[in-house]
């Protein structure tokens, strides 16, 4: 069995990470009733005998003694991490997994990337190595950070390069939270653009998340809940927003709910690698199937049914609706409409009591409405995991490599260009040691090249592509 290590960077990364650990613990608690440390739990947690002082020893079998998250927490401010350490999740982390500073990155990518990068490189590396040593077979790093801030985008992307050099065999999955239009950080277009170049070059897979989309989804859930229709009730044991483990206990704070969605995304993504199913999907299969060209590794995700994300008990609608929803605009975790763009590839990760025939039926049903690139007309990757999310009968995570990410990138470029033309705030960056202006131009051209690749694919959308002539056998 393989293991994954979560690296959460910056405020946003740590908040999402915190939600994630809370949910992961609860999911395993629900599935693993006997309290035996098994392969599924070992994916994200190691079992440590606390009576033994020496920390290095993990227990590979037997009863669960004390679970420690396979995580590295990095922030250049102390606030969030301290809150976590004082909260209910404090036992799953220990100080050896943390890297904090007090100064903060000041929403400056260059500070995060260049200053803290070189300052903490050794320390980061040491913690990563330590976490890797605790694994039998480390398969994947999940890196969670935001794009708009300084620490997350700067140090988070710095980390990618370090990982690539140090662990070339281990996959790097980045969950990147993109700033919404109304983002209050003025420099966020700069930070995002500079980070994008790093993601382009050093990530295996990026799951872009858009704050705005998360917000819309939460609003929609609220609407359903508050409308009182459908006889909804708050579920006592649901996974989602009643997150006792998170930093604050205020239900109404939208960020909590939003973070929970992202945490759920990670749980679903790894479900098939952790639990049994009739059609397994390992994490390394994701990039294999969904990344046809090295640069095009941005996967648009959608989670359905949405009520799995809420504390509400809506009577299950038809199973088929779940599949339809996954392709609708409202369910995407970025502002995008995959149905009207071009699919390069699509993965359906199904959990719960769903059989292959349900999957086939829905693919057949949905296919005509979707456009796939000419050379991948049947670009479906499917998995069936028999363990559903806690409290629900089934769920679906759709990952799409779709040209619909392009508008997000174009908008990012536009916002960047608006600032960059005026050279606004540029000096904050150029002050930083090792930061040169060329970095900006390079970042733009990197993103433009990416956009161009999507454009070229989009261009094939409307015109019929003739089959390439095959090898011709003479006899």
């Amino acid at each position, binding site marked *: 069995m*393989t293991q994954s290590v979560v690296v959460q960077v910056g405020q946003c990364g740590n908040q999402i990470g915190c939600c994630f650990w809370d949910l992961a613990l609860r999911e395993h608690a629900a599935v693993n009733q006997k309290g035996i440390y098994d392969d599924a739990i070992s994916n994200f947690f190691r079992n440590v005998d606390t009576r033994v002082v020496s920390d290095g020893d993990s227990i590979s079998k037997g009863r669960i003694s004390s679970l420690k998250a396979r995580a590295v927490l990095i922030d250049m401010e102390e606030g969030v991490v301290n809150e976590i350490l004082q909260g209910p999740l404090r036992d799953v982390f220990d100080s050896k997994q943390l890297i904090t500073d007090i100064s903060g990155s000041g929403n400056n990518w260059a500070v995060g990337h260049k200053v803290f990068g070189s300052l903490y490189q050794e320390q980061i590396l040491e913690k990563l190595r330590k976490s890797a040593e605790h694994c039998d077979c480390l398969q994947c790093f999940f890196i969670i950070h935001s794009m708009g801030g300084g620490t997350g985008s700067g140090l988070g992307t710095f980390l990618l390069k370090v990982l690539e050099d140090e662990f070339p065999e281990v996959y790097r999955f980045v969950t990147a939270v993109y700033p919404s239009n109304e983002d209050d950080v003025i420099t966020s277009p700069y930070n995002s653009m500079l980070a994008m170049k790093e993601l382009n070059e050093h990530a295996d897979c990026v799951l872009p998340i858009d704050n705005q989309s998360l917000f819309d989804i939460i609003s929609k859930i609220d609407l359903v809940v508050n409308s009182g229709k459908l006889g909804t009730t708050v579920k006592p044991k649901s996974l989602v927003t009643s997150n006792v483990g998170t930093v604050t206990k205020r239900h109404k704070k939208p960020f909590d709910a939003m973070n929970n969605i992202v945490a759920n995304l990670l749980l679903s993504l790894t479900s098939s690698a952790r639990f049994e199913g009739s059609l*397994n999907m390992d994490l390394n299969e994701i990039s*294999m*199937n969904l*990344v046809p060209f090295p640069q095009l590794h941005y996967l648009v995700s959608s989670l359905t049914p949405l009520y799995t994300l809420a504390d509400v008990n809506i009577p299950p609608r038809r199973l088929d609706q779940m599949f339809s929803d996954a392709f609708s605009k409202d369910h995407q975790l970025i502002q995008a409409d995959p149905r009207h763009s071009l699919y390069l590839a699509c993965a359906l990760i199904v959990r719960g009591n769903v059989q292959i025939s349900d999957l086939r039926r829905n693919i057949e049903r949905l296919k005509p409405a979707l456009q796939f690139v000419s*050379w*991948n007309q*049947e670009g479906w990757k499917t998995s069936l995991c028999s363990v559903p999310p806690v409290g629900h009968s089934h769920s679906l995570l759709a990952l799409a490599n779709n040209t619909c990410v392009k508008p997000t990138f174009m908008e990012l470029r536009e916002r960047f260009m608006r600032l960059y033309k005026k050279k606004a705030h540029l000096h904050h960056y150029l002050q930083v040691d090792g930061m040169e202006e060329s970095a900006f131009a390079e970042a733009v051209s990197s993103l433009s090249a990416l956009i161009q690749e999507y454009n070229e694919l989009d261009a094939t959308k409307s015109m019929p592509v003739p089959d390439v002539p095959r090898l011709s056998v003479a006899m």
Partner: protein
Amino acid sequence: MSIVTVQLGQCGNQIGFEVFDALFRDTQCSPGLCSKRENEAYQASCKERFFREEENGVPVARAVLVDMEPKVINQTLSKAGQSGRWKYGQHACFCQRQGSGNNWAYGYSVHGPKHEESIMNLIQKEVEKCDSLSGFFIIMSMAGGTGSGLGAFVTQKLQDQYSSSLKMNQIIWPYRTGEVIVQNYNSILTLSHLYRSSDALLIHENDAVHKICAKQMNIKQISFRDLNQVLAHQLGNVFQPTYSEDGSSHYRRDPLGDLMEHLVPHPEFKMLGVRNIPQMSENFLAYSTFTWPGLLKHLRQMLISGAKMEEGIDWQVRPPFSGLPPLGKMSVHKDLHFNTSIANLVILRGKDVQSADVEGFKDPALYTSWLEPVHAFSMWKTPRAFDKYEKSAALVSNSQLLVKPLDMLVGKAWNMFASKAYIHQYTRFGMEEEDFLDSFTLLEQVVASYGSLGP
């Protein structure tokens, strides 16, 4: 003679379990109307072939389980253990922690060489437990990475190491509309490599089996387990004992060898499809009666019309020049759908099997022009009923049945290859574009060769 089964990857291991379970269950079935002695001989013959005895009396499958991740193997072992009827060998498994990630190249070029020694040792241990080894039955899918890539590697090694033993690969053809996105690449790589190293490719299409589950078995929500059970039933129907040709009292010693000698002697024609009849849900079985002429008529029409199951057979299709009056104008076009055979093997089991008449399969019009029925047709039988069916017939056919799916598969892979999509995933592990081209070339030839059989 014994057959050592090698189960590879998730698909191979899940199917392997169902196959052994089906074989064993069948031997425990009420023997129908054959004598007790007869039944004992049947059981003994099946056991020698697929199971070995251990001290405690529980039969042990002659199988080696290989996967690159532990989940499925653990599940399979425990299912077999729970059955209490038979089990897998204690040290017959090989698994690693990390799968091949749907990457053929990873399975073939990384996992293969890395674990060659351990896997071949396991196989050798199993081989040493056979007094007489007929060959290997290698179960794998061709869509994924472990089954397909490692499967091709292991088959190659078996060919090197046991060149005179037979190798039959049971291959699962993925759903046409995708299970794995790179399945077409993985498939062409698998098929072309196996065409070099294996003796016969017994192919089951998931789409076809799925339809059987839906239409014939009336299963509403179809699971992989359902598919695998149908498949296991078909395989059982082929490999359970039948009488040898010369004397009627002996069971065939080497079904694998006999089957191959009949069906796949030509190097360009190695793809076999299986059809069987009847196949239905148990609920209906009780209300159904069958006659040999009826079953064989249907089976023959399934063959010539290329039908994958009994339901929805196109009765308009007629063999060309068979002397039958054409059915109006239709028949001219229908000829185009006629499925030409190279060679067929019909297996009959059950009551009154002596009276079954297979003349319909000996019509030269069914076969390609260069092979006469005397070379191209053979029949096996036994009065022992198979798995709850009073009478049942199976057809193993080397015919054009699979050329269309193959053609489509090659076409899709070629399209993808022309756009260079996903190639980087393979070149990472030491493959070159040249390797793809080799595979395409070989398979284009196979498509052309099968295509040129027709009338």
